[in-house]
């Protein structure tokens, strides 16, 4: 009983491994807040390779939000499946346009025009699948890849008609890749920007979802991912998704 109480009271640290104030960082803040009194401290590291080493070696309990693309084959941040506690969050990709652009507001323009340009985030992992999906909608679409900062002004510059985003902000949304619209039969129609829940202890992700911190998260388009499935099924689906994306290259 005494041992049980001690284990229960053990503090859990949260690893921060990404740009301060960015999406992954914010999700780690949510995890830390959801822990309440059990939160120990943030372990701050420069990159995911260092975070991986901590996950693999530390004896103290740690948790962290872990972007799914890091589990792709060949990624230097790929961690052992034992450290993947669960899937965590997912936000579908939104096809957005600039407010006032009447041409882009028409979905037929996206689907049929021969001069459509769509901007996507410059990620080797996500870009190939997104490009395949967009070309399946309209083979004439030109897909342009942007790094984070120039991506912010891409729509306003007028050089692209649409921007594919997981967190659309105030941009009007033309369509969502959520499996219900556009191409429901396409293998990537249900794809979003997703994260895993990683750590070296067994911890129920539902505790995070039911917390005050989760209810008040600012990234509201990020919803619990593959909730109500067993861990094995969750990981199987993630592996399938990773394989599908790898096969598009």
């Amino acid at each position, binding site marked *: 009983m005494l041992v049980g109480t001690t284990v229960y009271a053990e503090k859990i640290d949260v690893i921060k491994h990404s740009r301060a104030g960015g999406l992954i960082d914010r999700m780690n803040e949510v995890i830390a807040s959801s822990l309440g009194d059990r939160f120990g401290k943030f372990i701050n590291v*420069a990159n995911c390779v*260092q975070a991986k080493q901590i996950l693999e070696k530390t004896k103290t309990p740690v948790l962290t939000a872990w972007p799914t693309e890091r589990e792709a084959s*060949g990624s230097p941040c790929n961690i052992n499946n034992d450290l993947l506690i669960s899937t965590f969050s997912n936000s579908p990709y939104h096809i957005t346009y600039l407010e006032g652009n009447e041409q882009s507001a028409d979905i037929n323009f996206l689907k049929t025009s021969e001069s459509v340009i769509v901007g996507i985030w410059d990620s080797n992992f996500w870009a190939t699948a997104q490009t395949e999906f967009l070309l399946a909608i309209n083979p004439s679409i030109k897909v*342009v890849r942007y790094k984070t900062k120039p991506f912010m002004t891409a729509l306003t510059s007028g050089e692209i008609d649409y921007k594919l985003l997981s967190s659309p902000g105030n941009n009007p949304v033309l369509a969502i890749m959520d499996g219900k619209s556009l191409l429901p039969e396409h293998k990537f129609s249900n794809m979003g920007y997703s994260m895993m829940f990683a750590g070296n202890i067994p911890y129920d992700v539902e505790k995070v979802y039911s917390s005050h911190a989760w209810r008040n998260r600012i990234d509201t388009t990020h919803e619990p991912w593959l909730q109500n499935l067993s861990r094995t099924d969750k990981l199987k689906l993630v592996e399938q998704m990773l394989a599908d994306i790898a096969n598009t290259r």
Partner: protein
Amino acid sequence: METLVVFAAGIASGLLSGVLPGVGGFVIMTMAYPFLLHLDPVNILIFYVTMASIDQYFNGVTAIVFGVPGASMNIPTQIEGHKLFRRGKGSDAIMFSAMGSYIASMFAVLLVLSLLPALWGIYGIWTSLMQAILLGTASLVLVCVSRNSIWISILLFSLGALLGRVGYHTETGYAFMTLGLDVLYSGIPTMAVLVSLFAVPVLLKSHIKQPGNFEFPGVTLEGYIHTIRRLKTYWSTLTRSCFLGSLGGLMPGMSFGFSSLLSYITEKFLRRRKGIYKTGDMHCLIACESANNAGVFTQLVPLLFLGIPITASEALIYNVLETRGLPVDIEWFESTFDQILIAFALSSIIGLFLSAKYVNMLKIFNGLPIGKIYVTIFIVLLIALWQTGATQYAGMTHLWIALGLIPLGVLLYKQDTTPLLFGFLLSEPLIDNIKRVLVIYF
């Protein structure tokens, strides 16, 4: 009342970030994050604007007097200003920079005010093609106007570009030259390159070529008045740099750092074409220092009028507002414009006079051997480097990387390493823009 306290805190923070090399705006904003979370939303913007404005005045002084660029945007100031300082023209250099900065700040305010109806369309011309042309021209001119032979400059620019590529790249899924060291996966930090491959060779060369003691007569009110009278000699330089600085401020991700560079290389190119350029050129110094300040204000335009943060600090402000569930729409940002404008104008006046007070305090170093001052500066730089890294959770990592680069810096002390530094900074956005242009237009 809160606004006044925030304004004062902004001034103190600007002073801190300006005086301490490496402690730039983003570092201050990260450190102030918990404090910002409790402020009135308009005051968050006032804090940032005041801090950035004051920072420019003090950063310039540090670069001129101590030969240390506090950030990459101060490299041109360091090159021209410190040379003037060592020639005994430090007071002139500081007063002309300060006056030029003040005039450019006011110019930027008036420019934005006069263009208010057209600001919505400002990014209509800021396409990848336009950015590629500007960055390409800047890189080319930079290589041509360096005091190295053209081949050495190209080599150094390429070496800088190579160092800029080190790290793991999400866009390719590959790690480049990380040598299996996990510390290199995030890439080589800018501050480490700035310290080891720019500050070290510059200070070493300055000490070897011109040893001696620190001599600085300070500045006076009469000196300022005299400077205003002499400013007409620099009228065309000032006008050019005000426009170029305002334009550079709009570059996503680079903003007023690009203002300074664009204006500096333009001026240097023109002076060299006339055959009258010599390192320690007052025209070039005024050009980069005034452009900086114009860019500090125009960089706010995308945030205030389009709701788009284009710098890391602005993204942090945006994040604070979002975290607090505040409306981050264009209408709200626009409604803050008047107050932001007043804060910026006031802080510019304060910066002008406060920096004069500060520089006069530096007379206490008079008579000290310059070598000892450079060693102290180097130690301060290393501490600042650690501190900057610590805000990104990597203090020791940044320090080790910088120490690893120092032998290369020492080896290059006879060369002008500016092309290397700008190869490091500009090559990635340049290649990125060219790639996009090829997809969009071909």
